[in-house]
């Protein structure tokens, strides 16, 4: 356990500045974009919902870009072990249980992703305060932004992905995030061990299907149960990726 904890801290330190920079950008960039948007506001455009203003400002596009950079940071974190001093050999010969290298890296990626998502949400919440302050210049007594942040989270498909308000949504978002991380990690390990990397593509297809379901237009009739099936499949695939990936590391096939 101590070896795992030390390795975990090592992995996080290795991502250090890159992770802090991305989390900082996740807070600041939406605020800058929203400030640009509200500075051009007029009485005709002021009375829009926050989630519409957020999307129109380009903050969602910024999130996608930053997420891609974060996933790139994970890739660099792994491939760096093969550059220069080739520390991968040291890692695989450490006096710890063989699976520890895999689990410490995966845990570091999970924590980094959670921190990144939290940063985005903090930026969105601060942005709501910024926008509300600007809109109030145009609002009248009978048109107030009461409960607007909660309504924005409930109605925006983007915010519903990051901050689901139902248990079905939490399970779905968690399974999507886990499938993304474990699939990416497994794909990189397969590349390093020269194995077939087709399985992560299957996960990607199901991820896209789940994403479309979560962000689609309202559907006819009850549909919450349909989320469970996709979530279970993604969780199952995540478990499979973890089993196969840790096995590749234990057998040192990535050396």
């Amino acid at each position, binding site marked *: 356990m101590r070896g795992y904890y030390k390795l975990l801290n090592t992995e996080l*330190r290795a991502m250090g500045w890159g992770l802090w920079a991305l989390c900082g950008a996740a807070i600041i960039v939406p605020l800058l974009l929203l400030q640009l948007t509200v500075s051009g506001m007029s009485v005709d455009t002021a009375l829009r*919902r926050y989630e519409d203003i957020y999307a129109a400002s380009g903050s969602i596009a910024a999130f996608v870009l930053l997420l891609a950079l974060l996933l790139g940071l994970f890739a660099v974190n792994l491939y760096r072990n093969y550059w220069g001093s080739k520390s991968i050999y040291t890692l695989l010969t450490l006096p710890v249980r063989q699976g520890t290298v895999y689990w410490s890296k995966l845990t570091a990626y999970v924590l980094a992703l*959670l*921190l990144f998502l939290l940063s985005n949400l*903090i930026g969105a919440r601060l942005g709501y305060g910024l926008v509300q302050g600007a809109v109030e210049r145009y609002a009248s007594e009978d048109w107030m932004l*009461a409960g*607007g*942040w909660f309504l924005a989270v409930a*109605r925006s498909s983007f915010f519903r992905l990051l901050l689901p308000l139902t248990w079905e949504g939490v399970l779905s978002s968690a399974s999507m995030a886990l499938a993304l991380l474990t699939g990416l990690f497994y794909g990189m390990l397969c590349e390093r061990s020269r194995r077939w990397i087709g399985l992560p593509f299957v996960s990607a297809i199901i991820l896209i299907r789940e994403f479309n379901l979560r962000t689609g237009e309202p559907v006819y009739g009850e549909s*919450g149960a349909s989320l469970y099936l996709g979530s279970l499949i993604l969780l199952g695939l995540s478990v499979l990726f973890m089993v196969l990936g840790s096995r590749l590391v234990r057998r040192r096939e990535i050396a």
Partner: protein
Amino acid sequence: MRNLTRRLSAHIAVIIIVAIVLGGALLGWNLSADRQLPQTTLRHLTGDAEVMREVAISGSYSDSYLQTNFRWTSAGSDSSTEVRPLPRTPDTRHYGLTPFYWTDDARYMVWNYAQEHIIQRKDRYGIVDRGAATVKPTFRFVPADPSGDPNARSWSNRMEMGMTQLGESVYYIPPTSAEYTGANAIYELKFVSDDGQPPQSRVVTEITLAGNEPGEGNGPTIAILGLEAVNDQLVLLTSQDGVLTAMRYDPQSGELTGSTTVPEIRFADAKPSIEDRYQMDYEAVTDPESGMLHLYWYRYGPQEGIVETAVVSLRAGDGLEIAALSRDSLEEAAYGRLYARIATIRWLDGRQYVVRQEPAESGERGILSAGGQPVRLLIEVYEGGSLVYEGALETPAADDSVRIVYSPSPAARASDPVHNRMLERIDLTKTEVGNR
């Protein structure tokens, strides 16, 4: 300092986990606080607010994403919000003035052909077909104008006003005007056959239209205004010699079990004709708690721009009797559109409580409709035939447009029922003692 940095970096995982937990808790707390907004309140306008002291107002705001149920009492208001796991197509039941009759699980549409009426039944979204009932009326149209087209049709009201549901059955009577002769009937509709043959709807009772025959001595003229249901009985609303007459029937035997006349409510076919006649188009609310049927009528007053309204409450106990009749007058501009104004009517402690919507002045405190046209929800209390209290239901409008009950105003027709919340299911009840 470097020592400290080194020590902290040795435990960076813990720091990050703590940051995630604290940040998540803060966000969750903030969201939870926001979830309680907005609070619905009642603003007293005129009259004695004491009449609302033991009354609870409940309702809900809903759209594709969530539903907020609220309850107001004189002690305060509270609400609870349910978020949908996936956005769901809203119930379009009450959107706009539609040619449908709605029940909890179906919608009905009448195709009135010359020889037969076909009542088509589908699910509430109009997608799944659930059978069709056919009735073959025997009445005959005799236009009042001799040069009129005998093949034309003349209905006193929209076809769906002749329909009502009682228990599992749906009943129907074509809303014939006073230009029909022969006989009309109340039918119990049958949509699906058990034996492979076309389903046969049952005639509950026949209504003679002999009084509409030209000439004297044939009895009162009769126009069928609509069919309602209360206390397991059917209530047929008619205009007989131009006077509102309600008749109660047993749905099984077709026996007439009560009737009453409301002489204050007179229509265009009254004899002798009158200037100030009520429109035949009415709104009805069944009040199962008190076993009453409430009817809302309007007419254009003698002064231009004035609309007069009447609330008639019929008690359907052993027979049928008038419990209360209250009249009021409004400026037509304040009255707004002349249909689908009533959210509910309740009988509490011997008073009539009417919840209706009307346009509000721009800039006034109230509830906004889509497109920026403000409307507000009024609660009017009548006692002994007079208005004793008026209040306005309000919410600090959230950053959306809240459309009022049942159907939008014409200006709000462009509103998006998916993304704009609708205020609906408004009800008034007595608060329990000690639980206000």
